[in-house]
């Protein structure tokens, strides 16, 4: 754990959490009501941000800080036959972003840019995401960037307009929650399993009103990619944001990235970044602990990420739930998912698979899925959409695309794709999809679609088995 050797000297009332430190470094004004006006270091906009741009236009305003604003085409972009966009309505969404960024002198990672990809994948990849920054985007999974020790959270369209026009934001300070995960993760267990285990434990609203800090020896041992997955999923526990104190893993990842500070500026930044950790004895409003060594592969069975269970479990039985409201919620979820109470999770057959999204489509995720798929054939059709065009190129250099193709899966371009389906990559009504994404909400992958979320290795295991399955036996003797 990052423990400052000077921390013992910090008086009790001045001991700050990582979150407090980054928050106060951005506070311009604090109102009596408890709200603060915060400075925003990075603002990412995407096709869906048009509602915010429309508000700015209606006020006759313009972007206050174009050099701190970055546009990314991801939500609506096609994943096949680029650059053509079949639907004029969808094409219009991509053009609108082009026009709005161009009119305001904002850099755009557009459809044909080699740096294009999902906003939460390319922010880190380009070195735009740095420790200690305050980062916002009109997308709830902005929490992802907290993996670097940034304070990063999703905002709505009115707030997007506010940031565009002022580069600031009014916010009330959330409470602080620490999630300590100590111990060693077993083989074949990924960050997604940690996240779903946590959400099943505390609930989809368990962290509402809180900023999470992930700490503990298991977190220190995670790669940047895994930390991104974990912080990404924190919104599915209802958290306002999640953070991990930066360390040598963080600095090594950032060094040499296109937008990261260079040479002396980098050293100067690292010196500051090293101060970004919770002081020993800093207090949290809530603490939750997980034992890493006890985490097993987890899949969701229902329509909320809290409907998550170990792969060897059975679908819950509403009859065994004493609370009436909860029993009804369970049976509604079972109905929608087309499942029977007490059915074994491994007996649930899938119709297709999807590997993609800002949660699990980075290079390590693709490697983990490929480790299961190598030399095997998928029993169901499926789509693999890398998290960014750069991830796609790297995967191709490593030959992963050949493994996916040989398994019978489609290797596509990068975008949000089947995570939300608004580019047209949909799961058909009634179809069941094993997916490496973040939300198993009703209709998330298309009206009537049934989504089971899990790690990329578990998606690959479902592909080769034709049903939900444990990836561990399939990984035995393989490098994952």
């Amino acid at each position, binding site marked *: 754990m990052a423990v400052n050797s000077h921390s013992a000297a910090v008086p009790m009332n001045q001991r700050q959490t990582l979150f407090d430190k980054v928050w106060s470094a951005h506070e*311009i004004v604090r109102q009596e*009501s*408890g*709200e603060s*006006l915060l*400075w925003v*270091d990075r603002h990412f906009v995407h096709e*869906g941000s048009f*509602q915010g741009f*429309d508000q700015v236009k209606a*006020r006759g305003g313009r972007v206050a800080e174009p*050099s*701190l604003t970055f546009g990314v085409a991801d939500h609506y972009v096609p994943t096949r036959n680029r650059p053509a966009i079949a639907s004029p*309505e*969808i094409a219009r*969404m991509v053009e609108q972003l082009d026009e709005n960024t161009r009119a305001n002198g904002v850099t755009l990672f557009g459809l044909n840019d080699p740096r294009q990809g999902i906003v939460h994948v390319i922010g880190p990849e380009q070195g*735009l995401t*740095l420790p*200690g920054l305050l980062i916002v985007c*009109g997308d*709830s999974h902005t929490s992802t960037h907290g993996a670097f020790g940034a304070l990063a959270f*999703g*905002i*709505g*369209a*009115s*707030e997007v307009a*506010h940031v565009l*026009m*002022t*580069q*600031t934001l009014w916010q*009330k300070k959330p409470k602080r929650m620490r999630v300590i995960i100590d111990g060693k993760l077993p083989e074949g267990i990924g960050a997604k399993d940690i996240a779903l285990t946590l959400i099943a434990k505390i609930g*989809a*609203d368990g962290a*509402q009103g809180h900023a999470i800090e992930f700490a503990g020896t298991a977190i220190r041992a995670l790669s940047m990619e895994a930390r991104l997955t974990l912080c990404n999923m924190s919104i599915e526990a*209802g958290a*306002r944001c999640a953070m991990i104190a930066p360390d040598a893993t963080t600095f090594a990842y950032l060094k040499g990235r296109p*937008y990261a*500070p260079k040479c002396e*500026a980098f050293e*100067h*930044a690292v010196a*500051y970044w090293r101060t970004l950790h919770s002081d020993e004895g800093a207090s949290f409003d809530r603490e939750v602990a997980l034992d890493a060594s006890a985490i097993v592969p987890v899949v969701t069975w229902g*329509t*909320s990420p809290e409907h998550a269970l170990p792969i060897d479990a059975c679908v819950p039985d509403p009859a065994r739930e004493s609370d009436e*409201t909860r029993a*009804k*919620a369970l049976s509604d979820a079972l109905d929608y998912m087309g499942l029977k109470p007490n059915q074994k999770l491994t007996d649930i057959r899938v119709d297709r698979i999807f590997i993609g999204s800002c949660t699990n489509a980075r290079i390590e995720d693709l490697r983990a899925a490929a480790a299961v798929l190598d030399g095997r054939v998928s029993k169901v059709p499926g789509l693999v959409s890398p998290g960014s065009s750069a991830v796609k190129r790297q995967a191709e250099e490593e030959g992963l695309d050949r493994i996916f193709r040989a398994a019978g899966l489609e290797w596509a371009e990068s975008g949000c794709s089947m995570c*939300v*389906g*608004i580019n047209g990559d949909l799961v058909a*009504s009634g179809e069941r999809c094993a997916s490496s994404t973040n*939300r198993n*909400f*009703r*209709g*998330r992958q298309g*009206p*009537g679609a049934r989504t089971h979320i899990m790690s990329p290795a578990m998606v690959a295991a479902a592909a080769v088995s034709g049903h939900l399955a444990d990836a561990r036996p399939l990984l035995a003797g393989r490098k994952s």
Partner: protein
Amino acid sequence: MEKFTTLTATACPLGLSGVDTDQILPARYLKVKRAAGLGAYLFHDLRRDESGELRGSFPLNKPQWRDARILVAGRNFGGGSSREAAVYALYDAGVRCVIAPSFGDIFSQNATKNGLLTAVVSESDSEAITEAARALPVTVDLQACRIVCGNQTWAFSIDPARRERLINGWDDIAMTESFRAKIASFRANDAAANPWKYPA
């Protein structure tokens, strides 16, 4: 923004918990411009079957609740995606207040920016309000943070800053204008102290 002080209206009990923003407004309607109105798409896939017909079983489709301006829901209403258009859909359909035991943080924040009140009550009060609202209109008093139905009264909670904004109908961007000078000096000091934060 329209001010919110008190509202007396029909309150529709949704009888659902965990209504995420994908259910309030399915993603395929996110292309719709605000000016075009989003009320018609509110709860689209809960409200309509696959052929587009209204489902008789969905509470808002019942004649007595068709014009409800208040909704009563279970825990975690508006969790999930940050789409503010979910708030537009509610607002454009005439809804001005949602009562629930808990709300998605971003949803509540978006609601406040648009004059929609998110009133937090306990699980048991939410059930009691649900029962009472079947027969009588409900009054939501934001000054007193109180919900009244017939001869019953319940307290609700809301963040004081959000309450103040709703009561006054404040506009954030206009409010921030008065801090222009402070923002400019913050930026200048920050850029001097932390040049690494500012991409060349």
